């Protein structure tokens, strides 16, 4: 036995009575699952290539297709699950590190789902957002500690640079290279229309997107790809990426085969060369070193733009955040262990990092205890799935949240988690021009605007229910939250009471 056969995970169920053999499934599947047999006059499928992205299912005009989980199972074993055994086979076959994409799919606790939100009854009135003004605008950046006055007693209104957002949400970092030109165009256009920001990730900023600069956060990561004067000057804020929730402690690797044309030019590296982002920044080994980079970037942008430092949520996150808050950074972004990625080693994605809810609560508390919470704004990400998650995050102490997976879902992503193959049938995580064109940014940006508009309505409804008319009054307002089914330690870290208390 040279290579262990692994039975396919999915089956393609074709309703023969409904199939009209229009071959749309065949034309739309980059994995070449479907084919038309002219001799038999029927569609055939090779389910071993199927990744369950549902492109064929979505486009089949007669709903003749269904992708189902295969029921071919290895002998049941409570210790050795099917997937564990298959991973062993794969590694024995290939000798390689297992790769995965998007966020951690393991059944680890989702604390958002164990937190409930308060509402007003009798003693304080709820507010109807359809009748009364409701503020969702936020400003991210360093806030003054106290009111200062000049010699004549007038209040000094000059404050550190702020990032203004119409609602406490931003699209998080996804590089041009990991996602397509059209995906970037959709995000950039939607962010501009919504009055929020999107983030370039570590792939540079395509020349076509400089016009969206006022709604762009540019990233400076360990590989420094695409960083130059105009890039920094174009942006609304600059983000130093120290780590990513999906793969804390490791760098990135965009294979040379994807470094073609515009991507090579945007990243400022030769075509065909691997884009390797080292695990550490080779010039940062301490908070003092980080401070140097923060101030280098501030100097380069004439102290006009806030600097964000993004880290993954790891064990000592409160102490790390405290250090960052003293480094001169204006905003700290923390990415939880469920954050997505275009490719990460499976073991890292599934086993490294901590839940963002706990990280956020402990960081906010630590910064408050140390009296430096005003030094920085807190942005959190790593699977914020709905307006309710946003409200819970803000009440736990976040100034804003980063969303990426939800944004990609709006663009058509079906979470098949095979971005690393580069054959995204939805035109998102691919550079193949035939696939990229499947994402029309006119549609994509509109869908993102729709999603965020819906979330903004929901945020207002939830705030109104609590009798709060401004997102600022909700921030860190943990009295608005209660835990269900959480133990004492979890409640202590989250800084909330149990439901009924």
């Amino acid at each position, binding site marked *: 036995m040279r290579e262990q056969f692994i039975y396919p995970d999915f089956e393609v169920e074709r309703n023969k*009575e*409904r*199939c*009209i053999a*229009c*071959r*749309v499934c065949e*034309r*739309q599947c980059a994995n070449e699952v479907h084919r038309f047999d002219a001799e038999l006059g029927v569609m055939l499928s090779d389910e071993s290539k199927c990744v369950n992205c549902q492109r064929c299912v*979505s*486009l089949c*005009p*007669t709903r003749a297709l269904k992708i189902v989980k295969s029921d071919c199972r290895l002998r049941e074993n409570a210790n050795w699950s099917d997937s564990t055994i298959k991973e062993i086979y794969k590694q024995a076959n290939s000798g390689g590190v297992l790769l995965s994409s998007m966020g951690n799919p393991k059944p680890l606790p989702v604390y958002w789902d164990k937190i409930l939100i308060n509402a007003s009854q009798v003693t304080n009135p709820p507010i109807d957002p359809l009748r009364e003004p409701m503020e969702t605008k936020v400003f991210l950046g360093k806030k003054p500690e106290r009111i200062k006055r000049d010699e004549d007693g007038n209040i000094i209104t000059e404050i550190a640079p702020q990032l203004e957002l119409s609602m406490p949400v931003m699209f998080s970092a996804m590089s041009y290279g990991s996602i397509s030109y059209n995906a970037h165009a959709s995000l950039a256009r939607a962010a501009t229309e919504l009055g929020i920001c999107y983030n370039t990730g570590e792939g540079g900023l395509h020349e076509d997107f400089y016009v969206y600069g006022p709604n762009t956060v540019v990233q400076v990561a360990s590989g420094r790809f695409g960083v130059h004067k105009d890039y920094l000057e174009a942006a609304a804020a600059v983000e130093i990426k120290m780590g990513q929730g999906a793969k804390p402690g490791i760098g990135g690797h965009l294979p040379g085969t994807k470094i073609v044309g515009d991507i090579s030019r945007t990243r400022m590296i030769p075509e065909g060369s691997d884009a390797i982002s080292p695990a550490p920044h080779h010039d940062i080994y301490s908070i003092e070193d980080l401070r140097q980079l923060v101030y280098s970037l501030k100097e380069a942008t004439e102290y006009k733009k806030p600097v964000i430092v993004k880290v993954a949520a790891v064990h000592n996150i409160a102490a790390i955040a405290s250090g960052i808050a003293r480094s001169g950074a204006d905003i700290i972004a923390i990415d939880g262990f469920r954050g997505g990625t275009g490719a990460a080693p499976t073991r890292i994605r599934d086993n490294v990092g901590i839940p963002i809810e706990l990280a956020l609560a402990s960081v906010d508390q630590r910064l408050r205890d140390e009296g430096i919470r005003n030094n920085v704004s807190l942005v959190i990400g790593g699977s914020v799935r709905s307006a309710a998650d946003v409200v819970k995050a803000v009440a736990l102490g976040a100034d804003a949240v980063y969303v990426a997976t939800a944004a990609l879902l709006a663009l058509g992503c079906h979470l098949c988690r095979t971005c690393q193959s580069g054959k995204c049938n939805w035109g998102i995580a691919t550079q193949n*021009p*035939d696939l990229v*064109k*499947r994402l*029309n940014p*006119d*549609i994509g940006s509109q869908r993102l605007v729709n999603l965020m508009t819906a979330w903004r309505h929901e945020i207002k409804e939830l705030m109104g229910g609590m009798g709060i008319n401004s997102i600022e009054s909700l921030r860190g307002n943990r009295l608005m939250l209660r835990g269900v089914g959480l133990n004492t330690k979890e409640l202590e870290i989250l800084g909330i009471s149990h439901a009924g208390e």
Partner: protein
Amino acid sequence: MKRVYVNEQWCLGCHLCEYNCAYANSGVDDMVKALKGKQIFPNVHIEEADGVTYAVSCRHCKDPLCVKSCIAGAISVKDGTVVIDKSKCVGCLTCVLVCPYGAVAPGPDGAASKCELCMQNTCGEPACVKGCPNAAIVYEERQERA
């Protein structure tokens, strides 16, 4: 007047427009019943070559050659839409020959068939536009060319 336009940049070559067209013009209320096991005669055709795909349908010319060429007087312009009266068509297919866009084709009954913007069927709006997954086919008002 509103016409069907194609943004080639967004055409995926999925051929859904052809099936939606054939279904809309079938007069049958179920797509499977209308199209299963049958050869389809859509009024929109995907042209593909060298990686470019494009849906071609009637341009509804201001001064249509097909109307001029029709020996039976079956083709006429009604409120800007070029329509075929199939009861008059003798099936000479001169219109197919003269159309510079290749937008007229023989239909299942031998008579010439072409896009009539779904005005004659129950779809209400062009079915190709409605069903295009990438908004590559649009139905809109554009500045008329001289």
